[in-house]
């Protein structure tokens, strides 16, 4: 326990101090009802748990929406109408770079929250900024991909397969863009208002959102791109 300076360790210590019962980390049910977690007969949950819980539910619904676009892509994948096939569309090097940027951004996003837990304004902002820049790089690369495809006449209007492709990938890109706008707003809020209770709650939600988009991207990377080049 000599590495007290690390945010994760600070966070652990703080949790133990403020939250000796490890809220939300114990089983449900009558044997271990936890005050403030909304379990069993203990009464309403604390605000932090309610907010996080509600946001999880929202994320699930968002993932259902992605599932529809995945399903549509799968149904329409073979309907190339004599036009380009998945092989013609995929450019693995660029997609690899996109993936790297996004995965890295998830890591920095996690670091930013560790800094939030340690109540370090500077590091929170630094890591949020890095996260945002990596997200911007991702969106930029994707835009570049779309433009170069369009230059070769590969547009969603060409065939149902391309409709499914641009729809799914574009929806994810739109999500990352909106998340980026949210991130910018959060940075301004943290700067002006500091770590107020509701600001921290919003940072929790933002983190969840960013990681969820990462997970969706793994699905897209695998199903659209990797499976697009494997025969």
């Amino acid at each position: 326990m000599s590495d007290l300076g690390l945010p994760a360790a600070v966070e652990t210590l703080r949790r133990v101090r403020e939250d000796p019962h490890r809220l939300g980390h114990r089983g449900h049910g009558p044997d271990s009802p936890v005050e403030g977690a909304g379990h069993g007969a203990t009464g309403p949950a604390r605000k932090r748990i309610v907010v996080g819980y509600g946001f999880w539910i929202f994320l699930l619904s968002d993932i259902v929406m992605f599932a529809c676009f995945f399903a549509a892509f799968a149904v329409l994948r073979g309907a190339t109408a004599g036009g380009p096939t998945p092989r013609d569309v995929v450019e693995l090097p660029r997609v690899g770079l996109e993936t790297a940027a996004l995965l890295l951004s998830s890591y920095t996003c996690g670091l930013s929250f560790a800094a939030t837990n340690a109540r370090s304004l500077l590091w929170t902002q630094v890591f949020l900024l890095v996260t945002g820049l990596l997200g911007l790089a991702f969106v930029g690369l994707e835009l570049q991909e779309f433009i170069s495809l369009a230059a070769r006449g590969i547009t969603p209007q060409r065939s149902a397969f391309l409709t499914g492709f641009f729809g799914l990938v574009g929806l994810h890109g739109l999500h990352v863009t909106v998340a980026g706008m949210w991130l910018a707003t959060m940075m301004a809020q943290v700067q002006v208002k500091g770590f107020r209770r509701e600001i921290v709650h919003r940072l929790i939600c933002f983190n969840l959102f960013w990681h969820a988009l990462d997970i969706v991207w793994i699905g897209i990377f695998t199903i659209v791109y990797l499976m697009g080049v494997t025969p």
Partner: protein
Amino acid sequence: MFGKLSWSAIPLDQPIPLITSVVLILTILGVLGLVTAKGWWPYLWREWITSVDHKRIGIMYCLLGSVMLIRGFADAIMMRSQQALAINAPGYLPPEHYNQIFSAHGTIMIFFAAMPLVIGLMNFVTPLQLGVRDVAFPTLNSVSFWLTASGALLVNVSLFIGEFARTGWLPYPPLSEATYSPGVGVDYYLWAVQISGVGTLMTGINFVTTVLKMRCPGMTYLRMPMFCWTVLAASLLIVAVFPILTATLAMLSLDRYFGFHYFTNTAGGNPMMFVNLIWAWGHPEVYILVLPAFGIFSEIFSTFSGKPLFGYRSMVAATLFICIVAMMVWLHHFFTMGAGAAVNTAFGISTSIIAVGTGVKIYNWIFTMYGGRVRFSVPMLWSLGFIFTFVIGGMTGVLLAVPPADFLVHNSMFLVAHFHNVIVGGVVFGLFAGIDYWFPKAFGFRLHEGWGKAAFWFALVGFWVTFAPLYILGLQGMTRRLQHVNIEEWRPLLDLSLVGVGILIVGAVCQVVMLVVSILRRDELRDVTGDPWDGRSLEWATPSPAPFFNFAVMPNVQGEEAYWDIKLRAVESQQLSPEPRYEPIEMPVNSPVGFYTAFFATVTGFALIWQIWWLAGLGLAAAFAGFVVFAWRDVHEFHVPAEEVARVDRARRSAREALLERLGQQGAAT
């Protein structure tokens, strides 16, 4: 500059929509003028428009739903009279107008009448029954409501500016694609449903979180009133399937606006994919409507029989069973797609299995009445009418679930009769029952009993006279959505159905009269005890109307029927529990964010419908700016001082003491 919008969008040459919209606009202007003249705006703004109180929001939802119910009913009257008049004759509605009417009727009834009423009751009742002061996200709740209102507004604007979809309440492609529906009708549908759908999704999230994380101390899952369970199940369904609706309509919009090929019949698009996706939402949607209605009936049967709900645990299990199986039956809406015998059989079986869960519930309700002291008040009448009507609707549903039989009557009047049988008999009867039941809690006085009973009997008889003929017509081969009919033999039944509509109109008039009479005689009908029906769940522990903070002190539930236990203890010991120590209460502050969001949603939606791109961009930018501004607020809660809480609660306690005394005297007399 104004996209596709021009003066020709106003239907100056069509008398019916023109007159309707002029009357509507005059009515709206009249109401606005009255509000202005009386100086009610500050009050409305403070107490209602910006309110984040779940009870206020619930009441506004119900108001919206009731108005839209009347609008949808007007469409229905026009359709039935057109069919009766258009037997070997043109009738009075040209096809392109008739098609808009049946599309608007279905859309309005499902999205803007039934859903707001169901969600309104969910809003009003759930926190009270759970013993808490509000839902999990009060401000989000207000946003949900205003988005729903925004969608309803757009649908009604289509009456006056432009046109509505002619594609039915589910816009099947390729008909709904830009090639075959080039006008703005489908776009009105898309954006109205999309905007209100987002509101509904947020309601679902809100209520899942509320039920799972916001129960008062002692309220374990298996102590929750049945209504809360059905709210949970319906909300889970909303969260699971409304994103499918959003995605599907977004895909159709991409097709229409940007020439994508999701559902086109060219370039490899797949129209049947739309049908699959939309029913993957659509079937669960009917259960989103009917499950809360089941919850309402459960409360009513047990209250008016003076008994706990029979088989409470089996009822919970049946609810969750229906919740899950509802997502596994969607293909029964298009057995004729040609998926093959194996697929059709699987879905036929899963569909019939749902009826098992429903059957469990029906028996439980009947056994709840068995051996009880049944009081035939208005809510109970609706519930009894429901059992009779719904059982028959369920049985015709099971008939339709048999693929070979469905091939014969698919898309016929038999189908129309089936789903009205379950939706009117189940959902609408449930809503009327629920409104009658909880009205005193909302406004402090009961609804007039005589007029309520009259409304029930006219509705029940009118329903059967309207829809029983449609079953027969369907079996005789009449398909749905006919603008004219050229088979003379169908005339008697179509006329009979029109008579039924006449009876339903009388029923609707009775409802309005009931409301007016009740308001005029509110002093006689006043509920001073807060417990007008001898209720069993926590909402009856509050005074009527309930104070904005619901409970002065959060209840501590000790048994399965929270309030019934408290009441028994009090009657037994002939005294209330000792006065608690009152503490200040923290309540969320009002917020205009819902109204603001909906305003810009309406503007953006309208701009997108008419392809006024700059306005759409402006609307989105304003929405984002609003988001930032509202996120900047610092004050989220205000304190109700302990003295105020004490004052309200002491009034409640003295009313309860009077009630207790009366009960004690009655007990001594027997």
